[in-house]
């Protein structure tokens, strides 16, 4: 069909008209671009106003325009506006092109002649481009109502419950034998000091009993196929060696198991478990796991004590790993964090001096259900510390380790200080760079600590040593620190040192990100779609993140994100289907020779190769429309909607239409 293009130059009040001679530009376009199909060219005070939009719609109808170019502000601002205007006039919205003569012309140039000249170039570029715009319709993909939640910490639990309570099915995958995550290891939670287990356990039980939740503990995601709305997730269920249908969780097996194993996971190395075990009494599910690395039977082929004593014959040494595939529409990643390894700072003496503890060790130490039944004692198991030093920012806010602030350590340190003070009456020193308590009730808690007489020393600890310079230091751990408030070096002898190790992304977060096709920040935290306006979505449609996997945060924030992610997922499920921007690549199978150059060019695995036909194909739902494969295809067999070669090549022509006059200052016009 012959082009009938309408060109609309916006004054944007004086924003554009103040610098660009808009009347001149529209007149020029009307005359000089007529041969390209411009049938009408107008300028108007505010194109984005309803009147301006009606102007376009009126022309579309009366002049039966089949293409529209608006020269106004940045497409990021009003592209949708004008596309919708065209839609309103039954013109396919993608036949409308918005070119920016404000952000990229009138606002950044002062020379009016030059700016006007450039505006003409930009408009002519838009006109030549729009000629090649195609009618497009957003792709619609159905949304599978089920959801996968990875990670059974508090964020994952919250997300799973929200969705399940709304009546949709959830698969909750947890690596460990029980859900609960780090929160289950804590004793008290700041600032309210309510017992962690007391508030967490009911939620865990809800998850365990929820009809809409399929709980897959001791399991890991192996493979993710498909795309938003239609993921096929392959999950490996590691063998428990327990027939859960028979197991009652009575606990006889782990009573009878003769094999003690140091528990480096839940007890953080502070206590032992058996070779057959549940990580902690309130574990969900209640079924134990036989740890085949340490179990005597698996090592020596004898023992089987658990089997002998199990009242329901639920032990099954033959059990093997099971791989299942589930269909889900959306995925929430809540895989949490690792603790910074305090060994990396040798001068702090962790693992060199017995009485230097990490924060997680201390959580277990003061936990009523922990190895000492909540008694705060030194490693010897009896001595109660008289002075305790709490070192903040261990591995955080330090460019040698992690430059970022771990967010939770200040409050955690204060909590520890309180617990030590309360239970032992010991003198407590907090060594801090800054105290950061920016949340509801946090500052109050800080003040409470100050009133309790906890000592605060502002300075980064230089070292923890066991060397005594003066008799008072004998047999103590000496904390060397510069007290920056009095400008003096201080040596403070203590009995116990607690290192507030920072939070780190999971050691395997890179692999997990790859698995789910999302990206990591420099510190390997998962990157959200927008740091402020879209904190739980990712760049990959249908994959959301919640909790510390996105960055260090405390329990309230993690719960909030879990709920937020759930809300986003529910929103998608409710829509039943989602529309994807139709900017996509397609491969012409006849022209594709199967050279496979494009095959590793797509980070979203949208390009698949058909061995038999020897051609590659783009999955439109996975394709994000970046166009890298289009540019990379040696055969020119890949074309892209919205940014086709024709569109861009013509736009170049258009932009250069005027450059025969080799000057930004126009000679004609």
């Amino acid at each position: 069909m012959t082009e009938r293009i309408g060109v609309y130059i916006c004054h944007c009040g004086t924003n554009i008209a103040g610098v660009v001679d808009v009347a001149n530009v529209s007149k020029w376009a009307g005359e000089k671009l007529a041969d390209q199909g411009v049938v009408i060219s107008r300028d108007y005070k505010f194109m984005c106003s309803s009147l301006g939009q009606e102007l376009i719609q009126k022309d579309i109808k009366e002049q039966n325009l089949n293409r529209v170019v608006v020269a106004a502000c940045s497409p990021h601002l009003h592209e949708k506006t004008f596309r919708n205007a065209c839609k309103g006039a039954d013109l396919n919205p993608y036949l409308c092109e918005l070119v920016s003569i404000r952000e990229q012309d009138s606002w950044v140039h002062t020379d009016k002649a030059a700016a006007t000249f450039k505006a003409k170039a930009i408009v002519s570029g838009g006109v030549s481009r729009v000629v090649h715009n195609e009618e497009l319709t957003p792709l619609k993909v159905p949304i599978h109502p089920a959801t996968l939640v990875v990670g059974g910490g508090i964020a994952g639990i919250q997300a799973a419950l929200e969705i399940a309570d709304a009546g949709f099915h959830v698969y909750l995958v947890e690596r460990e034998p029980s859900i609960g995550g780090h929160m289950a290891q804590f004793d008290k939670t700041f600032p309210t000091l309510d017992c962690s287990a007391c508030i967490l356990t009911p939620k865990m039980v809800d998850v365990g009993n929820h009809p809409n939740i399929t709980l897959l503990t001791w399991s890991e995601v192996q493979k993710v196929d498909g795309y938003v709305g239609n993921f096929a997730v392959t999950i490996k269920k590691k063998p428990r060696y327990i027939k859960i249908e028979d197991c009652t969780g009575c606990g006889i097996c782990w009573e009878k198991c003769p094999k003690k194993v140091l528990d480096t996971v839940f007890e953080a190395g502070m206590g032992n478990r058996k070779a057959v075990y549940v990580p902690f009494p309130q574990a969900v599910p209640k079924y134990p796991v036989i740890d085949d690395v340490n179990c005597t039977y698996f090592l020596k082929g004898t023992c089987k004590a658990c089997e002998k004593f199990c009242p329901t014959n639920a032990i099954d040494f033959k059990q093997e790993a099971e791989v299942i595939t589930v269909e889900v529409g959306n995925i929430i990643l809540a895989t949490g964090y690792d603790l910074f390894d305090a060994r990396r700072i040798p001068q702090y003496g962790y693992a060199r001096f017995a009485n230097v503890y990490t924060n997680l060790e201390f959580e277990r130490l003061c936990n009523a259900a922990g190895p000492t039944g909540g008694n705060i004692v030194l490693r010897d198991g009896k001595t109660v510390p008289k002075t305790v030093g709490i070192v903040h920012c261990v591995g955080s806010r330090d460019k040698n380790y992690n430059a970022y602030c771990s967010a939770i350590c200040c409050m955690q340190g204060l909590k520890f200080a309180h617990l030590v003070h309360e239970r032992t009456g010991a003198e407590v020193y907090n060594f801090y760079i800054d105290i950061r308590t920016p949340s509801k009730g946090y500052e109050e808690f800080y003040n409470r600590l100050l009133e309790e007489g906890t000592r605060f020393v502002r300075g980064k600890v230089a070292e923890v040593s066991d060397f005594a310079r003066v008799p008072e230091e004998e047999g103590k751990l000496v904390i060397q620190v510069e007290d920056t408030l009095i400008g003096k070096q201080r040596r403070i002898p203590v009995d116990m040192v607690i290192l507030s190790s920072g939070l780190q992304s999971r050691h395997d977060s890179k692999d997990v990100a790859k698995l789910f096709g999302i990206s990591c920040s420099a510190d390997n935290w998962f990157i959200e779609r927008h740091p402020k306006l879209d904190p739980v979505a990712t760049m990959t449609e249908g994959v959301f993140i919640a909790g510390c996997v996105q960055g260090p945060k405390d329990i309230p924030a993690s719960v909030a994100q879990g709920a937020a992610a759930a809300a986003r997922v529910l929103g998608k499920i409710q829509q039943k289907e989602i529309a994807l921007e139709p900017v996509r690549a397609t491969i012409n199978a006849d022209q594709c020779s199967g050279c496979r150059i494009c095959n590793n060019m797509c980070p979203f695995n949208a390009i698949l190769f058909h061995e038999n036909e020897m051609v590659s194909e783009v999955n439109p739902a996975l394709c994000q429309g970046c166009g890298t494969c289009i540019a990379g295809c040696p055969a020119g067999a890949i074309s892209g909607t919205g940014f086709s070669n024709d569109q861009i090549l013509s736009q170049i022509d258009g932009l250069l239409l005027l450059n025969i006059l080799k000057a930004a200052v126009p000679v004609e016009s």
Partner: protein
Amino acid sequence: MSKPKFAMYWAASCGGCEIAVLNIHEKILDVDANFDVAFWPVAMDAKYKDVEAMEDGSILLTLWNGGIRNDENEHIAHLLRKKSKILVAFGSCACEGCIPGLANFSPVNEIVDTAFSTITTDNPDNIRPQSSFAMPEGNITIPTLYPVLRTLDQVEDVDYYMPGCPPESHQIAAVIDLVIQVLQGKAELPPKGATIGAGNSTVCDECPRKRNVKTIKEFGRIQLTHADPELCLLEQGIPCNGPATRSGCNARCATVGAQCIGCYGPAEGVVDYGARLISAFASVIDSNKPDEIDKILDGLVDPAGQFYRFNLAGSLLRSSKSAQKG
């Protein structure tokens, strides 16, 4: 009724195309049976004035090979266009410039210097040809070189393109069959501007070598490497132009262990042949570090030559800056 007229002309090219035409064996008899050869300087004596005398459009089919290097080439191009119903850009030179087009890397005077003033030429007095020279008998002239070589469609309107250096004989035969069938009303001519006598995919389509996902850590020259005979050459770091080159040759070179150098030109709809290869090769380089990337690229000794061996005159830039200055 008299047979339709056939013509073939040889401009800036090597003559391989003519031989390729004669190389279609007994099919050449069909040509004779179905056509009157009106004008074919290589095959039979003919004078330009005879052609000039012909009625416009009286030649049915003209196979033009060679690029436009001088004013004579251009003159005949215009002439034959006028006289022919169907003008076919025959062979790589006519379609995209081919090897003669590589001269577009150098200014014309350098080309002349190389021809007349280098060790390979015995020219002690450094005599140069002149476009016109006064003799007692009068002025004698030879064609004047243009600054750069142009493809046929850069000077005249072309009906069909037939790529290849030279076009494969089986493809020529097929095309002649087609034309004859059209004459007999048994077939339709393809749409104007179409590429005939070739496939519309690329060489890989016909290449038997095994292919995997590509990542290139190092480019090497085939004569310096022991290439796996089964495996895609490009994957072995050998710059093979196959992925970007139009199919139709049955992957002749790749099947016998040499990389494709691209004589069949760009695939359907491609604007700039070299750009496709630049983009494709670069995309699969296995590094994100600028200096490392440069190190890998050092393996491509002559990128422009690699990517534009046949296509320089037909490319977007057409020639080097120095050549343009003449």
